């Protein structure tokens, strides 16, 4: 794929035959300048075959007039003086096209917005208009006809992360029969949501909610799910990415295993569960958790005796389906896709980073996620809220804004913690009618149409006590004798201390710890707070600055489930709007090019290109600009110390000759 | 209307020059002007530049002796930043400086001034130039000169970056160490350079000292000038190119003044002529009394002969022998005859070769410690070295950001300016009779200044 302009010499040797048209724009221009002088100015220039004024060039008559003029006078280049190019450049380019001229052989002179509308004195306005006109006439002689080339593209999509966001991207695309590769670094899909018990505000069962979606994903013909898989490398650009993904060995055949668990009994190695971290005990061969999908076992190399050198075959012998594959190895796959969606989700702030929360210093100080596991019927306590000693807690404290809304860690508000903390309190109340339940917060963030009702319900029915903090982190948690002490400063600045036997920390949502590596692989800069930067935070929040790379869910910023799903759908929509199977992709006609005869390969430009369009292929002495990725901003052209960048339409020569016209 | 004899341009020297001789009514020589029509203004346009750029910037004063300017400049920076170069750096600098003086002196002997005495002036078969010299002495010697200059310049390229323009000088050191494995090569070059230096003295012996014409000329008062002499000396008053104190002897050879770089302002002064861009230096202690010889005149001379006159010997054995022999033959110190500059120059070639040999075997030469980074904030720095054509002084003053505020440059040939004018006048008076001139006579006059190996680019800068 290369972009061939009509090479300059040929064009310049042709008679230029420039036509200059001045739009009177009713009185707007006609009455504000000496039209005759302008026409005289124009006619005075080499190659200008005629100059004319016309009432309203943008009117149907005006357009017809122009078309006719271009044809009848065999004009090769057109200058139109009138309103701002922002108004009608497109319009008039169309006219040129219709009249058989390349649309880029047009130059608009803005003598309305930037002249007659702001200059009262006719003489001054005329003088400026003449100068602007001179510039345009000198410039247009150097215009090159440009054509928008197209390239073929692939409409398949790679989705990274099979959480609720990624799954919904996949499903939305698959519904339109787009081929989707859904990769997930965990052995199972569904992400965080699949491991929640019930969801606010209506306390529906999370797994019941998402299970059908997971099922649909796993069984959809045009979705290929790759678990235990991570991105290794991504080359290319919108419509033409090549992604290499690395798949870890599972040592169990996905298609043969039905997760019957026969091998679990047989496996001699027990891996103890963790209370903190909310993990149940398991064997070396196991499924991550009951109900995990795909419901297929995997072997944990760190514990399996075979991988410690022993010759154990218990699982192999016990498997009724012959699904065990000891010889399976990690593998690399190359996927050809047109777009990539990053839906890698979030990590939760590690409260151990701040001593004030006493995390790790005492039993029974846990994070909300750990609490989430605790109340989960598939969790270590089958859903019972118990202390480390197996007793039910009598006094539970929920602490808000742990690691968020503080310059020390994360300035932002994660936006969802308040609601799930209310939910947790509610869940606790349902199990422990007599327990004392408190919340420590400095503000409550409860957006959304259902939240306030839920809050009122918790407030009124659940007998929760709220302590308001002076600042989000005006709190000190430490181990007491047989209990946990929480000292906090209230809004009056009074210091108060209370005792609890379980503390749940609502930790900030942070970008997934792997996101840096992924951003590196995708060559997309992360924003200051560690999340992906949007192409436009308001108007294009699902696109990254690199064309063809999109985000969904918490990879962009903290979100709750509905927003994650919504953004998943949005990403799918953007992709379907950009890539149509079998359709070719139009390129930016003003894309820059490198003159390989001049480029020294000094790489100055490469680092400047926001769109990563400039690359030096290995063992190539010079760089080249990918025509599909360049947006024609010309920053490289201004920076190249060799003058090796050929900027289209805004070439240095064109700008210089416009300058000469403006000042000369 | 006075008659004028004009030599334009004067030739076989670096830079631009014209001679205008004015004859009286009787055809006798009234006056002679030695004019230098070029000027660039380094002392102004280096202002505002960054101090650390000076060694590579000011060396462009002269493409023939850039190494000397590079050395003087970098020494001025050492002083400016008050930083002592490492031992290795000093050795590397001296090596390149000495090697450079070696090949530059050869350039003069074979290409520029030498032809005057190597190609007899009556000999019409050959032009007085390198091609004539080769014609006279044979292709072989030509090839050898070219070869050895090439190799010595190659050595400088190796040590300092470019055979012509060294770039390695930095305050407190140099940019690049000499790897131990290069030592053998350097030793070989030094060895062959020494052999060729002796060869040159032999040539001088046979072609010059045994040539009646030259010997007669050396006895003419036309080429004799009784002046003060200035040169840099080491602790034992022996000639030193790279570092030391400035010693001035009077026309009888007695020590007149001795001072360190920083004090040069108390000893030297320069005057301006409206008809030349070359300023004329003279001894402040004596003062300017016009173009006159003798103890009462502030005129002094620099360069090879002056260095030998102003010193008490040379630090290497073979050179010392030749040194003694020269003064023997010429009847004691100081020698005033300008044409003897040629001999003195070859003795310095010998000394340079021997010195190169010494440095080549110096352990410190290949020490990797080549730089000390300045820590002092800069103010004022003076750097002095002996350029092939004489004493060279760079003087910089900066702000605390090390941006040049003021600088003063006293460049080798400027020291000789007065002497050169007087030499031309004396030669003109001696050879022009009743206003009659011939190419031979003009050449005789030019020999009067050419022996100095003047560099006008330097002299005007």
């Amino acid at each position, binding site marked *: 794929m290369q972009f061939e302009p009509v090479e300059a010499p040929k064009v310049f040797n042709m008679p230029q035959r420039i036509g200059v048209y001045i739009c009177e724009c009713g009185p707007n221009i006609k009455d504000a300048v000496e039209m005759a002088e302008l026409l005289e100015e124009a006619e005075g220039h080499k190659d200008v075959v005629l100059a004319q004024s016309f009432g309203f060039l943008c009117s149907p008559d005006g357009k017809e007039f122009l078309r006719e003029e271009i044809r009848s006078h065999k004009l090769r280049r057109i200058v139109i003086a009138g309103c701002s190019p922002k108004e009608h450049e497109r319009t008039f380019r169309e006219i040129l096209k219709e009249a058989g001229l390349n649309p880029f052989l047009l130059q608009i002179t803005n003598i309305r917005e930037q002249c007659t509308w702001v200059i009262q004195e006719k003489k001054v306005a005329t003088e400026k208009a003449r100068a602007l006109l001179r510039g345009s006439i000198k410039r247009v002689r150097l215009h090159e006809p440009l054509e928008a080339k197209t390239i073929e593209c692939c409409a398949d999509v790679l989705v990274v992360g099979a959480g609720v966001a990624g799954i919904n991207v996949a499903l939305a695309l698959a519904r339109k029969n787009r081929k989707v590769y859904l990769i997930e670094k965990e052995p199972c899909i569904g992400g965080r949501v699949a491991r929640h018990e019930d969801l606010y505000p209506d306390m529906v069962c999370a797994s019941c909610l998402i299970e059908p979606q997971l099922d649909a994903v796993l069984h959809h013909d045009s979705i290929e799910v790759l678990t235990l898989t991570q991105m290794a490398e991504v080359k290319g650009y919108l419509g033409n990415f090549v992604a290499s993904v690395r798949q870890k060995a599972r040592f169990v055949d996905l298609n043969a295993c039905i997760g019957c668990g026969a091998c679990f009994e047989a496996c001699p190695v027990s891996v103890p569960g963790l209370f903190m971290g909310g993990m149940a005990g398991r064997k070396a061969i196991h499924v991550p958790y009951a109900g995990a999908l795909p419901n297929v076992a995997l072997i944990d190399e760190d514990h399996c005796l075979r991988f410690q050198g022993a010759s154990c075959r218990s699982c192999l012998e016990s498997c009724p389906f012959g699904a065990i594959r000891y010889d399976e190895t990690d593998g690399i796959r190359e996927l050809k896709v047109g777009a990539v969606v990053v839906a890698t989700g979030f990590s939760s702030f590690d409260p151990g980073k701040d001593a004030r929360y006493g995390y790790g210093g005492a039993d029974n100080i846990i994070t909300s996620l750990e609490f989430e596991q605790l109340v989960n019927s598939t969790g270590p306590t089958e859903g019972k809220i118990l202390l480390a000693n197996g007793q039910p807690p009598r006094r539970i404290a929920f602490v808000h804004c742990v690691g968020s809304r503080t310059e020390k860690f994360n300035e932002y508000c994660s936006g969802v913690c308040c609601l799930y903390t209310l939910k947790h309190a509610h869940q606790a109340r349902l199990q422990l009618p007599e327990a004392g339940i408190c919340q420590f917060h400095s503000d409550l963030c409860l957006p959304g149409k259902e939240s306030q009702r839920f809050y009122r319900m918790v407030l009124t029915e659940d007998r929760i006590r709220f302590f308001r903090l002076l600042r989000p982190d005006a709190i000190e948690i430490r181990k007491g004798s047989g209990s946990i002490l929480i000292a906090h400063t209230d809004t009056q600045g009074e210091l108060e201390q209370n005792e609890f036997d379980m503390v749940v920390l609502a930790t900030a949502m942070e970008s997934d710890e792997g996101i840096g590596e992924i951003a590196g692989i995708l060559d997309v800069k992360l924003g200051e707070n560690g999340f992906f930067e949007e192409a436009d935070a308001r108007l294009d929040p699902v696109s990254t600055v690199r064309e063809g790379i999109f985000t969904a869910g918490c990879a962009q910023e903290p979100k709750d489930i509905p927003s994650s799903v919504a953004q998943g759908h949005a990403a799918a929509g953007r992709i379907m709007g950009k890539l149509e199977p079998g359709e070719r992709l139009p390129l930016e006609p003003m894309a820059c090019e490198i003159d390989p005869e001049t480029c020294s390969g000094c790489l100055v430009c490469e680092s400047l290109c926001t769109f990563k369009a400039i690359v030096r292929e290995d063992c190539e002495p010079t760089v080249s600009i990918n025509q599909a990725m360049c947006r024609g*901003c010309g920053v490289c052209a201004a920076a190249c110390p060799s003058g090796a960048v050929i900027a289209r339409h805004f070439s240095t020569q064109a700008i210089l000759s416009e300058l000469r016209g403006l*000042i000369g | 209307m006075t008659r004028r004899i004009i030599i334009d341009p004067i030739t076989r020297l670096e830079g631009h020059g014209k001679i205008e001789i004015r004859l009286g009514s009787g055809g006798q020589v009234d006056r002679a002007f030695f004019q230098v029509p070029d000027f660039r203004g380094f002392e102004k346009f280096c202002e505002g530049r960054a101090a650390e750029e000076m060694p590579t910037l000011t060396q462009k004063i002269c493409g023939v002796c850039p190494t000397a300017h590079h050395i003087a400049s970098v020494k001025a920076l050492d002083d400016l930043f008050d930083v002592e170069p490492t031992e290795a750096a000093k050795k590397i600098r001296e090596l390149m400086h000495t090697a450079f003086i070696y090949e530059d002196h050869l350039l003069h002997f074979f290409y520029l001034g030498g032809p005057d005495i190597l190609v007899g002036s009556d000999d019409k078969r050959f032009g007085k130039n390198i091609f004539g010299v080769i014609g006279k002495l044979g292709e072989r010697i030509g090839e050898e000169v070219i070869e050895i200059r090439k190799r010595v310049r190659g050595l400088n390229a190796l040590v300092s970056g470019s055979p012509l323009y060294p770039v390695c000088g930095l305050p407190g050191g140099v940019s690049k160490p000499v790897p131990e494995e290069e030592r053998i090569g350097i030793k070989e070059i030094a060895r062959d350079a020494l052999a060729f230096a002796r060869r040159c003295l032999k040539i001088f012996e046979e072609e010059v000292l045994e040539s009646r014409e030259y010997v007669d000329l050396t006895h003419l008062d036309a080429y004799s000038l009784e002046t003060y002499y200035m040169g840099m000396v080491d602790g034992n008053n022996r000639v030193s190119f790279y570092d030391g104190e400035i010693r001035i002897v009077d026309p009888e050879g007695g020590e007149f003044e001795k001072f360190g770089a920083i004090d040069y302002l108390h000893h030297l002064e320069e005057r301006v002529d409206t008809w030349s861009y070359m300023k004329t230096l003279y001894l402040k202690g004596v003062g300017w009394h016009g173009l006159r010889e003798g103890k009462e005149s502030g005129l002094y001379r620099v360069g090879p002969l002056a260095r030998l006159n102003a010193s008490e010997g040379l630090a290497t054995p073979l050179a010392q022998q030749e040194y003694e022999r020269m003064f023997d033959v010429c009847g004691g110190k100081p020698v005033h005859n300008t044409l003897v500059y040629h001999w003195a120059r070859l003795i310095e070639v010998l000394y340079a070769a021997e010195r190169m040999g010494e440095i080549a075997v110096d352990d410190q030469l290949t020490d990797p410690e080549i730089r000390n980074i300045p820590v002092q904030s800069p103010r004022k720095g003076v750097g002095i070295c002996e350029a092939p054509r004489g004493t060279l002084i760079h003087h910089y003053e900066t702000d605390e950001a090390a941006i040049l505020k003021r600088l003063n440059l006293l460049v080798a040939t400027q020291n000789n300016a007065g002497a050169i004018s007087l030499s031309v006048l004396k030669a003109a008076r001696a050879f022009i009779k009743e206003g009659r001139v011939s190419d031979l006579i003009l050449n005789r006059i030019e020999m009067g200044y050419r022996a100095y190996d003047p560099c006008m680019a330097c002299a005007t800068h």
Partner: protein
Amino acid sequence: MQGVEPKIIVFLCHWCSYEGADAAGRGRKEFPSGNLREIRVMCSGRVDPRLVLEAFRLGADGVLILGCAPGDCHYKRGNIQALKRIPLLERILQQNGINNDRFKFDSVSAGDGEKYARIAGEMVERLRGQGSKNHA
């Protein structure tokens, strides 16, 4: 050389500042537009230092480069690339005898005709005081 009407070259980026200049027009702002000579580029980062130097060589009395507000660049960082060149360019101009009243980089957002009129007006005023560069 009083009373000379300064001519100022204004480089405007297609996406923001050019729009801002148009906005000044739509709002019929009062400012010395007659002294300005606008020239459109796609991005302020496209303004090659050569263009600025050439503008002065040709006799411009002042040069304005106006880009998008920080963070709003249509090409993400083009305006920052432009900004990075400014301090060195200012000093080069100074060393060539062109003082910094004659050269300014700033941002004007698409709607901000007010700011455009102000910035341009200020430079014209400053330069009216100084007369033409060619006689400075």
